[in-house]
């Protein structure tokens, strides 16, 4: 590992920080989008199970 870091030269910190930041931003973005997708799917499934799409109350009477 230390050999790898030495191979990156005197600016290893800048290079690793760049890749680390990019990874952090992209993982955060991916998780946020996937969580939002899952939340909307749960909410939609719950509404459809309750028959929320029925346009009038006639079916219930």
């Amino acid at each position: 590992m230390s050999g790898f870091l030495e191979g990156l030269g005197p600016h290893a910190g800048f290079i690793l920080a760049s890749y680390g930041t990019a990874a952090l931003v992209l993982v955060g973005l991916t998780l946020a989008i996937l969580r939002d997708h899952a939340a909307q799917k749960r909410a939609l499934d719950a509404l459809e199970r309750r028959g929320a799409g029925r346009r009038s109350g006639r079916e219930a009477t």
Partner: protein
Amino acid sequence: MASLIDLANPTRFMRFSAVLLPWLAAIATLLIVVGLYLAWFKAPADYQQGETIRIMFIHVPAAWLAMMFYSMMALSALGTLVWRHPLADVAQKAAAPIGACFALICLITGALWGKPMWGTYWVWDARLTSVLVLLLIYLGIIALWRVLDDPSRAARAVAILTLVGFVNVPIIKFSVDWWNTLHQPASVLRMGGPTIHPSMLWPLLILAVGFTLMALALHMVAMRAEIMRRRVRTLTILEAERLDRLAAQGAPA
């Protein structure tokens, strides 16, 4: 094969994207892994910039994607204002956070590359400032979507802001030619072909395609979430109206 017009329908888009997404994600992952391997273990150090050239492999694709997503949003804005395309404002809303993230990555990696090469993290020159303006426009668009509750009203307001902000995209691209700047001129997308050696160009192009496919996959998932959010909104309103009617009739909900 379905035409684009056929896909201009949320139900068809949901079916089509469900099939396409796993393939898009798999190809994106493969290309990013191969690209990173080439960038880290095969591409040589630059004769002037040394090992810091490895920052280019994420900085440049991030810059391209920040501009590409804004251009896609401008096309969607036209779709919203001119053709009232059913998926245009969904596509536009879903693209904004993704483009903003790539603009942020571009700025941060640029600063981390600038310090060892230029001796400073930041200068107020045309290229850097115009990319910062792009990030601020993205944030403004995201904020505007959140301020207005009615999606169709929000879509029209955001579409106008997006089209006005599009003037910044050619400024970013040509800023290095029009003004004196610390930033180097274009070395890949230029008249006369790339000036980068193939040993660096190939990893860059493979990573650019990989990140593009990843961003498009994320965009597709975000569009699916937005379509479902609108369906949830509509169904919630319908359910509330139905419960109101039942209550008025004196029947149990």
